[in-house]
């Protein structure tokens, strides 16, 4: 039987939104669906290694210094308060045994969820493949996402 597909665009790099994306993605995979997560724009921060900055020119380096990388350094979409919000949220998540984003990433790989990186954002932000964690399945563009989305049973933009 052909597996049903679930595709998500992870545009946001906020801890709360990315958490929702991973909860749905891992659940869908556990329900026997084929899942692809297409990371673009701020969403790329989830898959970027923790680094001081990256980029090829001065502007990119300045932007990527402000635009913090790493799955454990995501801000909250509300009540970020210079990092106090996410710090509190992480403690609350731990108290309730909710996996962290890094743990969800690991789970996603175990569940064979495909992680796709948008090449457009990748390029104009001046990223290199070394800036990203291991386990990226594909570097691709909008056409790949749309080709997947039109075949998918469920398609989300988060």
């Amino acid at each position, binding site marked *: 039987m052909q597996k049903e597909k679930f595709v998500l665009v992870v545009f946001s790099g906020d801890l709360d939104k990315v958490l929702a994306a991973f*909860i749905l993605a*891992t659940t869908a995979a*556990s*329900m026997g669906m084929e899942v692809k997560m297409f990371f673009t724009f701020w969403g790329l921060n989830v898959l970027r290694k923790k680094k001081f900055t990256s980029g090829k020119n001065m502007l990119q380096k300045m932007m990527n210094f402000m635009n913090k990388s790493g799955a454990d350094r995501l801000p909250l979409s509300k009540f970020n308060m210079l990092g106090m919000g996410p710090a509190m949220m992480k403690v609350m998540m731990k108290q*309730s*045994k*909710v*996996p962290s984003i890094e743990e969800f990433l690991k*789970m996603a790989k175990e*569940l064979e969820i495909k992680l796709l990186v948008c090449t457009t954002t990748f390029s104009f932000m001046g990223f290199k493949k070394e800036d990203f964690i291991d386990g990226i399945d594909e570097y691709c563009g909008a056409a790949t996402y749309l080709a997947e989305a039109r075949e998918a049973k469920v398609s989300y933009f988060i």
Partner: protein
Amino acid sequence: MKADETLDCFGLLCPMPIIKTAEKIKQMKVGQVLEVSATDEGIKADMPAWCRTTGNECLGVEEKNGEYHAYVKKLA
């Protein structure tokens, strides 16, 4: 209800009981019954929904003293 295997999901929130159930069921044989124990109320609706989608049978979800025991028969 008698179960061949058990899975302890006490204290875990959605979607962890479902993800762990999927993992566990994979290692079981067709016809065997799994008992999933949890404290998250979501399991009452989520386990039947998971079973519907994956083609397994939900034999029922029992509730007592804030604990939930869901029984899943592996069919697929």
